[in-house]
């Protein structure tokens, strides 16, 4: 899906000295991160560490208070006039799916391509069915979200985001709201997407999944990035004590 030039990876997201506050609470404190094209980053850390806030700043759902974010060459700012220009290229999958309940599965996937990318109904339908087939849910195309299980809904949400053909996908704890037996089907879908070369930043607690797909694991705690490493190093020999404590708590 994406061109991958060895040793010459352009960065698609650059985060510099990012600060985000909610009232008196500082959620992100001087965060620096670069995401290269084709890279898969897993963000992990305890609750309240700022991981969700960070990815929500990348598509400007949260507006940062200081620092710089550059996405696909464009700087996000309060004064930007065309935030949707960026959002078209950044796909997002939410913890609570956020499917549109009054539209069928295929209509959920067709809406944005038609309204934003200007596709005709036929083309949008074709693209939607293609992507629903890819996430193995095209037989439910005419059902409504309320009739699907959590795992099915999340796969539809992934297809819906992919229908916009984004350059980067953001996953905000995609399996945290699912019953355990449905987690695998969603993770498998994301793994396949990763293997196709999609650039992604994924906030997750699923460490087995992180080990499998991540190029880099970024560990955050209390608003800062504490440790960054490739998965093998991070899981086998975490350098910082906080990372060691965190892994000790979640791997049991």
């Amino acid at each position, binding site marked *: 899906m994406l061109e991958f030039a060895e040793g010459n990876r352009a960065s698609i997201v650059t985060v510099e000295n990012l600060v985000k506050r909610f009232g008196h609470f500082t959620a992100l404190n001087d965060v620096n991160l670069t995401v290269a094209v084709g890279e898969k980053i897993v963000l992990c850390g305890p609750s309240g560490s700022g991981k969700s806030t960070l990815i929500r700043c990348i*598509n*400007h*759902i949260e507006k940062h208070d200081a620092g710089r974010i550059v996405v696909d060459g464009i700087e996000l700012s309060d004064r930007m006039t065309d935030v*949707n*220009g960026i*959002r*078209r290229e*950044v*796909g*997002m999958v*939410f913890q*609570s799916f*956020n*499917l*549109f*309940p*009054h539209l069928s599965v295929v209509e959920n996937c067709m*809406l*944005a391509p038609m*309204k*934003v990318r200007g596709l005709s109904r036929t083309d949008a339908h074709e693209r939607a069915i293609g992507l629903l087939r890819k996430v193995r849910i095209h037989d439910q195309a005419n059902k*409504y*979200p*309320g*009739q699907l299980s959590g795992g099915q809904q999340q796969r539809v949400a992934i297809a*819906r*985001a992919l229908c*916009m053909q984004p350059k980067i996908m953001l996953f905000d704890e995609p399996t945290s709201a699912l019953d355990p037996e449905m987690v695998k089907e969603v993770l498998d879908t994301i793994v396949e997407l990763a293997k196709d070369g999609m650039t992604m930043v994924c906030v997750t607690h699923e460490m087995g999944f992180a080990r499998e797909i991540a190029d880099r694991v970024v560990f955050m705690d209390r608003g800062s990035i504490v440790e960054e490493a490739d998965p093998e190093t991070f899981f086998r020999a975490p350098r910082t004590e906080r990372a060691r404590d965190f892994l000790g708590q979640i791997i049991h």
Partner: protein
Amino acid sequence: MTSLDFSVVLQAWPYLWSGLLFSLALTAVAFVVGLVLGTCLALVQHFEVPVLGKLVRGYVALMRSIPLILVLFWFFFLVPIVLGHLGGSGRPVPIGATWTAFITFGLFEAAYYSEIIRVGLRAVNRGQFEACQALALSTFDTYRSVILPQVLRVASPIILSQTIILFQDTSLVYVLSLTDLLGAASKLAQLNGRLVEMYLVIAVVYLAISSAASQCVASLRKRYAIAGLRR
């Protein structure tokens, strides 16, 4: 008590029928105007538009505090005077009872529908808005294709209940000497003296229509509970 003679009702049926059509027409127009205007009023408040938002808030509060019968009188007597001043002639511009009825009911119901929709807008899950943002949908498309359809579906039982009340309220055009169903029955009763039969029959008509609509309310409530439109 003298025996009831419903044959007069049968004879008078064409006149009663035209009265009923007027009631239904007035309900339909007030429903459409009220819903469209009410949605606009709700959106102006929802977006907290400066100045206009406050004005709309005041208008809605006013319309919901004053009895409809008073609003009808105001409109009937005051608006011609206001128009006369605006037109510069100083003489009242008569707008007639029918126009008064249609305009007033539309404006009045708009206030009630706008409250229903405004509360409905606040109740929509924030995640829906965020999903629209993530998909780069414009504000217009967000509200037109995602938010308002959900609000209207979930609020449809309440909107329909309000419309049933509207239908019953159309009988108030009696004070403007317009001939709706009640007005027709009243005029006939004065002519043929059969008040009991007349009023009994139209009570049954009101009952039948309101009951049928209430059944729709119940099935709408059930439908939107099952389809998983909960938060």
